[in-house]
């Protein structure tokens, strides 16, 4: 994405705020504070990060800060680098340039304090494990450990209760529906007792009814941990999160704390659709359709 388009985006965004008779200053002010108030604690800090699997960069010159206690979503097109961004934060990938800091240290050091839910489609659905087996993986740690202790099992059970799957603890993972598998993986991430929760596509394959309870659950969890999720579902995003991180090779952050739901949907829905599409804006800007 060219810098020109970025500027047009921001201009459009600002204009939109003014046009809707909404004080843009609140947003700008929040952003201002974010840039200059260094006393704030950031759980995730990326500075000048570029990464490519081949020579073609997937992410270029990303600067991103996520505050402690934040509830943010990464949105963007397929292949735009959303999962790559998560993997950089987890230290599963090393940036070509720039630095990544998570919970104040390197991603490798922070790992044990981070809960991660991958896209369940990456896992072998035929694997012979029970739900409990999967959640207990969240209790793995270095050092000799022949068996999981009773304490481990209790902790795993508590996490399953949190995602309302306690009664399925002894069922086979392969027998579950997509949405249930996703909740099992969330429980596994919670079982790590994380300070930061990273979720890759938690809303895919979840029916609207379940989405609501997922949403309630995440909001409850947000009281004790920072949450960052990748989502395609802008409707969900606009209801739940406090800021939106748009990723399409480059990263643009929109703080949204002061805005009400419909407006967020309008602005960020429109905004992100703009980022998502490959179409070029005309010189005059962009109009809603």
């Amino acid at each position, binding site marked *: 994405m060219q810098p020109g388009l970025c500027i047009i985006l921001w201009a459009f965004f600002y204009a939109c705020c003014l046009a809707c008779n909404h004080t843009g200053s609140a947003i700008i002010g929040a952003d201002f504070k974010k840039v200059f108030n260094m006393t704030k604690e950031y759980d995730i800090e990326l500075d000048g990060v570029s990464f490519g699997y081949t020579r073609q960069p997937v992410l270029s010159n990303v600067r991103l800060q996520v505050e402690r206690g934040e509830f943010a979503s990464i949105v963007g097109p397929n292949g735009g680098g959303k999962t790559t961004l998560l993997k950089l934060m987890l230290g599963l990938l090393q940036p070509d340039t720039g630095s990544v800091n998570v919970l104040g240290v390197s991603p490798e050091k922070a790992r044990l304090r981070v809960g991660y839910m*991958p896209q369940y489609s990456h896992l*072998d659905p035929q*694997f*012979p494990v029970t739900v409990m087996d999967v959640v207990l993986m969240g209790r*793995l*740690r*270095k050092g000799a450990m022949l*068996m999981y202790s009773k304490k481990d099992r209790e902790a795993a059970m508590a996490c399953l209760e949190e995602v309302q799957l306690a009664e399925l603890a002894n069922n086979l993972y392969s027998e579950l529906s997509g949405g249930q598998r996703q909740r099992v993986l969330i429980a596994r991430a919670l079982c790590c007792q994380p300070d930061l929760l990273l979720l890759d596509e938690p809303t895919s394959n979840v029916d609207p009814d379940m989405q609501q309870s997922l949403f309630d659950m995440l909001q409850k969890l947000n009281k004790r941990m920072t949450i960052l999720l990748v989502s395609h579902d802008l409707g969900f995003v606009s209801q739940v999160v406090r800021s939106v991180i748009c990723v399409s090779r480059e990263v643009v952050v929109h703080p949204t704390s002061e805005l009400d739901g419909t407006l967020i949907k309008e602005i960020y829905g429109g905004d992100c659709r703009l980022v998502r599409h490959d179409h070029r804006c005309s010189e005059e800007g962009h109009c809603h359709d």
Partner: protein
Amino acid sequence: MIEFLHALMNPDNAFLRLAFIVGTLASVPFGIMGTYVVTRRISYLAGAISHCVFGGIGMGLYLQNKVGLTWFDPMIGAVMAAIFAALIIGMVSLYAKQREDTVIGALWAVGMASGLLFVDITPGYFDLSSYLFGDILLISHQDVWMVAGLNVLVVSLSLFFYNRLLAVCFDEEFSALRGISVGAVYMLLLCLTALTVVLLVRVVGIVMVIALLTIPAAVASQFAKRLWQTMVLAVFFCVAFTWTGLGVSYNYSLSSGPTIIMIAGLTYLAVISFARLAGKRRG
């Protein structure tokens, strides 16, 4: 069956007893490692390792007969080649994800070819079919001890690392995030598989190794829910296959390796057909 038991008791049939003991002992690592191989879907890697073993056997024959290292048993060569192949394959599958199958296919053939070339330059005649297709007459007292030793090693390591192996097989990425050195655990898995493959070569030969490694676990996975249950069942199936295979081959004067594989294969076919039919009826 009774005839076979009598044959087992017969002091003249020491080779049969040895085959019986080795088959039974080796079933334990077969069942355990076979389960890992089946669930992690690396039977192709196990196949490549087994064919590389032939290179080691060829090298062993060469060193023993041409160079004059009489202590260098072909089986020592087999163990070395298996571990070496496991390490290379592990590196390839960890670091060169895209061309993994091609590289492994190449290694498969090169291992085999090197074995044949070693045999070519070794003076004397060797009955290669006994290595390729297994021959219970080859089993010696020394082999029983070797199998017992490897047995203890494989079983203790795979049980000690059970949780970690399970986690790495299920989700490598997540295991890495829990501070587990995934690469090391994966290498351990491959090395244990390699050692198991060497044991298998004794019983069914190089070409049919994959079948006896995977079929018991595949049959077991039709009945078992969890990984350890699959392992226990796979051990039982493996014992059953080798026993019936040995019995049938003795009674009808057939080669033991192919008989064992045939019985295992037919059982597998029956089980999946039955599961399929039962599933359809229920559905």
